């Protein structure tokens, strides 16, 4: 099963819709609740990052025949200048608006990595591409 979702820059009101839908979808497949929680946290953090930091992008969700959950987040820029710095817990470039909505603690990427079985991120000025899998 594969589903894709468009995420718009700065759309804080709808942020979390894709993550909620993915969680509901996985629940119908009877996935382990502990895995489901890790998927939900990582997916929500990454979706929020698309809203806060990107110029817009897509989320692709796949549940493989072997029960592996794969999530891809692909945006169109502006990219992360220094991924190592962005991965540092507490480091944040989030706007005041993002903080008003409860985000920007600088824990997102590190939290996603802790949740995922596999975590891979690449970034250039043309976009950031994040892949995570869970099993």
């Amino acid at each position, binding site marked *: 099963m594969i589903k894709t979702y468009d995420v718009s820059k700065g759309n*804080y*009101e709808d*942020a*979390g819709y894709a*993550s*909620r839908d993915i*969680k509901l979808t996985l629940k119908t497949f009877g996935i382990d*609740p502990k895995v489901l*929680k*890790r998927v*939900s*946290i990582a997916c*929500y*953090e990454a979706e*929020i990052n698309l809203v806060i930091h990107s110029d817009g992008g897509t989320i692709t969700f796949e549940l493989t025949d072997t029960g592996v959950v794969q999530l891809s987040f692909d945006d169109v820029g502006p990219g992360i200048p220094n991924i190592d710095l962005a991965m540092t817990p507490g480091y944040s470039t989030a706007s005041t608006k993002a*903080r008003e*909505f*409860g*985000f*920007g*603690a*600088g*824990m*997102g990427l*590190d*939290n996603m990595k*802790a*949740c995922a079985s596999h975590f891979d991120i690449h970034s250039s000025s043309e976009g950031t591409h994040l892949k995570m899998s869970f099993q």
Partner: protein
Amino acid sequence: MKLKEILEVINGEEIYVADKSVFDIDFHGAFGTDLMSDALCHLRDSDETELLITGLSNMQIINTASTLDLQVILVVRGKPIDDHLIEGAKMSDISIFKTDYTMYQACGRLYEKGLGK
């Protein structure tokens, strides 16, 4: 500490109750924050029943609670809670209560009474 006791300690006001059984939920602890990303990180590995205490009142508190499988949110500082938020709570089966106490006062009172000790 059961939710009904928690509500007595902080003079909690009922905003939306998903199910009457929530009043009998026995909470192991609570996490107070206005940064949802902190909650997502701190409560990631918790298997206990936790209460989310926050001064925020936008849809992201519902999304965060839902993501973490939390059943109850306590909003502090008497923040107004609009119908949009209540609709979101209904869709996610999450109960919301509020108190006029500040975050500091609410957390202090609950901790003093044994929640999370």
